[in-house]
């Protein structure tokens, strides 16, 4: 199954987003990572790399991020992960994108691209009408 990683400045936010996403996409493998190594608000590349490795089962990984350093540190983590399988960043609102991705990852013919595109569809989410 395509793995999903949720990266936020806050570990609690990342875990909360994972919980909401897996409530819909129950079977999806979603790793939550956030905050710095010493528990502050922020991000750091090593924990993101570990989360990517944990989410990877040979079918690729889609990474969702919140903002700023999360984007840049996720890029660095992907560059340094050196996995055989494909790891991509989705350009999407992290909460809605994670939910879309978790649902898409459960489809029988899911691929890294289909999951990434589902996540990026969240850019168009309208909450009223």
């Amino acid at each position, binding site marked *: 199954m395509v793995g999903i990683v949720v990266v936020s400045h806050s570990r609690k936010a990342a875990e909360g987003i994972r919980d909401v996403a897996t409530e819909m996409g129950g079977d999806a493998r979603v790793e939550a990572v956030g905050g710095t*190594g010493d528990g502050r608000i*922020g991000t*750091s*590349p090593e924990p993101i790399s570990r989360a990517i490795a944990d989410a990877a089962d040979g079918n690729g990984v889609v990474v969702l991020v919140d903002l*700023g*350093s999360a984007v*840049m*540190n996720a890029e660095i983590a992907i560059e340094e992960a050196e996995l055989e399988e494909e790891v991509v960043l989705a350009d999407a609102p992290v909460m809605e994108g994670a939910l879309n991705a978790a649902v898409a990852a459960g489809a029988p013919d899911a691929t890294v691209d289909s999951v990434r595109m589902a996540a990026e569809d969240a850019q168009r989410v309208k909450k009223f009408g």
Partner: protein
Amino acid sequence: MDGATQAEAVREAIRACTERIEEERSYLTDLDSAIGDADHGANMTRGFTAAADRIDGLESEEPAELVKAVGMALLSEVGGASGPLYGGSIVAASGELEEGITAETTVAFAEAYLEKLQERGKASVGDKTMVDALVPAVHTYKKSIEVDGRDPLEALGKAVDAAERGVAFTVPIRASRGRASYLGWRSVGHQDPGATSTLILLETLLSVATDHLDGEVEVDAEAEGKPAEEGDDEGDAGAVEVED
């Protein structure tokens, strides 16, 4: 300067940058409180303290290796956007110093640093970021050496002046990258913290380079009967590499 002397200059530059960042911690935090998330002073202090510790534990006499270790420490320890920006760019550019520290290698380092910074941060001049201080500094350093034929110490002085003007330029403009961009027009009138820390590091490198080169030039001039240009380059560069 031989490898060991260059390495010592690099170590001294890192220690000096760490001390200066610590001194400026609340100033950077105040700037970042106005238009950001108020963590720049703490993050930079944490990063540079980790960098200084790593350098102390590293027995290398290779400037490139020491500089790379600084970048790796910043990458892991900063936590905010300055981690990937400063750290990632230093790591990416450190390879330019493998042949040692000279006018040429420091220009190459500065250019590689700037290229990586812009690739990662996707900011341009005028976005109210560290790029506003760095672009004029790097261009001035390169031009001063390659076109105007200045020695590296003079070139670094010009680069610091250019960075200072870049920092002033961030005050009246509206942020369009980074945290401050969330404030829109309310970011106008505030000085950018990242541009400021860039200037602070460049000033520190200039001061370390000046200390090194003043002594060195005299000694070499006496020994060889002419101004010691090579010594100049190296000491200066020792600073420059870490600068970024």
